[in-house]
């Protein structure tokens, strides 16, 4: 069985989503959008340091999954992890503080933007070596299976990641052990600057490989938060029922460059524009109107989001850098770094 939802068709099959859920899906998308735009501005001001990988245009995936997750579920993210971290409810100031490498950062500046982690929110780390976290997510799912817990591990990664060895090992392993893990491939059409089709033997890098692991091929419109939410729900239900892993390919597009100041010049003309028409935030705003939400309700969400981002920005600008003494803490579990006596 294939579950394929053509762009546009989703609204019809998702008529029964609860109103609070809809508002929630919108709120998370808007907050991520506002946050990412601000992060970009701050990067241009040299206040966001190191690197930074935005999810502008991919917000529906983070929102759809996060809303479908319950407390205790575990997220495993990549360097492109701001969105998923925020979507799980992690404090915006802490995330921005980490990007700005301040002492109020989520990891006090020790990890940096590529490694956002908030164990309290089930965000079990962001991983910057392509593919590494797919097996790790299997391990967290194994723990749940072993203890009889019903939490699910969710692992987000990009299209380019489907070509690395760890992807293959993890998928087979999860399938053989029937682990409660959901693999979400955010296919944004590019592996950094290279179109995914130029380096991949199949058209749908994740979905066309599902059968290699005995899994069904699932393609979802990644710019439609409802569609993502529904697909995630179904996969979670399957996982919690002990029926093993799922692999979901979300078709999407990133509006900005791969990282930092990448101007994205490798894109064919008109491609971005075409996708901007299907901007997930815009799509979802229209959806809300269509479903009878008032302009006032919608605007309130947007206003609150902007206020949150502004407040976080101010707090971070005022925050000090991390103190020198945390440099060598938490290398080992005793809190220190001593490798000798």
């Amino acid at each position: 069985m294939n579950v394929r939802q053509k762009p546009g068709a989703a609204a019809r099959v998702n008529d029964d989503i609860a109103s609070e859920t809809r508002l929630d899906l919108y709120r998370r998308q808007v907050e991520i959008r506002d946050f990412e735009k601000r992060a970009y501005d701050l990067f241009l001001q040299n206040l966001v340091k190191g690197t930074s990988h935005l999810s502008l245009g991919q917000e529906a995936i983070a929102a759809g999954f996060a809303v479908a997750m319950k407390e205790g579920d575990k997220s495993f993210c990549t360097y492109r992890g701001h969105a998923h971290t925020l979507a799980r409810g992690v404090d915006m100031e802490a995330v921005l503080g980490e990007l700005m490498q301040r002492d109020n950062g989520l990891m006090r500046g020790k990890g940096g933007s590529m490694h956002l982690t908030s164990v309290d929110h089930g965000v079990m780390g962001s991983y910057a070596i392509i593919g590494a976290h797919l097996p790790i997510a299997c391990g967290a799912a194994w723990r749940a299976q072993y203890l009889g817990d019903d939490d699910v591990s969710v692992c987000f990664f990009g299209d380019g990641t489907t070509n690395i060895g760890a992807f293959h090992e993890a998928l087979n392993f999860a399938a053989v052990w029937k682990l409660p893990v959901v693999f979400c491939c955010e296919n944004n059409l590019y592996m950094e600057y290279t179109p995914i089709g130029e380096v991949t033997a199949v058209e749908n890098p994740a979905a066309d490989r599902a059968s290699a692991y005995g899994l069904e091929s699932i393609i979802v419109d990644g710019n439609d938060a409802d569609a993502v939410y529904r697909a995630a729900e179904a996969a979670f239900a399957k996982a919690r029922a002990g029926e093993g892993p799922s692999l979901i390919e979300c078709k999407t597009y990133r509006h900005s460059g791969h990282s930092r100041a990448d101007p994205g010049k490798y894109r064919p003309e008109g491609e971005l524009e075409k996708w901007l028409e299907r901007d997930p935030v815009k799509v979802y705003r229209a959806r809300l109107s269509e479903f009878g939400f008032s302009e006032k309700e919608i605007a309130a969400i947007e206003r609150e989001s902007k206020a949150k981002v502004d407040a976080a920005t101010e707090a971070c600008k005022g925050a000090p850098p991390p103190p020198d003494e945390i440099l060598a803490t938490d290398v080992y579990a005793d809190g220190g770094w001593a490798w000798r006596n």
Partner: protein
Amino acid sequence: MAELTYREAVARGIAQELERDERVVFLGEDVAKAGGVFKATVGLYEQFGPKRVRDTPISEQAILGAAMGAAMTGLRPIAEIMFSDFLAVCFDYIANEFPKSRYMSNGQLQCPLVVRTGNGAGSRFGAQHSQSVENWAMMIPGLKVVAPSSPVDVIGLLAAAVRDPDPVVFFEHKSLYGTKGEVPDGEIVDRLGTAKVVRAGSNATILALALMVPRALEAAEKLKAEHGIDAEVIDVRSLVPLDTQTILSSVAKTGRLFTVEENPRLCGWGAEIASIVADEAFYDLDGPVVRITTPHIPLPAADNLEDIVLPTPERIAERVRRAMA
């Protein structure tokens, strides 16, 4: 008290920990039903069942990744990588994931797991199945690294490793699996980061690890008998944490240091310890620090060639004698 082989000690050590703590689980290739290719895990599957002792596909990255994910969420996995040479196919976990997650998350994540692996030469397996690669782990900040030389140390250090809250790479020596030693009854728990003076002596300090420990001891006996040189032999046991105190005190006493390494020469643990001593004990030293190592070459398969490359008791004794002359 019972006499056990090093191989049997591995199984007993794992069993002790599986029995003690429900969170301990064990996975690897052919480790369960088949009892391991070195027969070092025989009986565990039968005793603890398929939930706790699990066979995996040939997917070393999945093995270590799964161990890490389980460890960070509450289990205490022991993962087997059959031959230590294969650490190279899953090295990202060893070098970039296990040892950095706690630090990068500012202490939020933990990684309490043990990677057991068959290390070392002597089986005529050739260059891709015989390496001593303790330095591959020692050079990575955030790991702990252990290599026992006797059955009792296998059990005690394995227990310490499993109970340790940090990731530990545990090197078992393939050529020691068949060797025997006395092992007390009951629970055995040792301490990481402790070297052991296995032979007291006053003229020179010889450091050794794993298979090189019995060889260093034999060399010390030769040196005493044939040349009247009384060497102290220290089994380093734990490379990280490193028991520099025991080493530096010994050098303070003897004034000479020799390291005996099975790994190829460059950037081995001997280089690290030699550098520490050459810096911190400079004024204690009566002569150069000498490293006795396998030459810096891939390992040959043929028995006669393999026997020449590893440090032998004769070569160790001769090198020490020459340096002390």
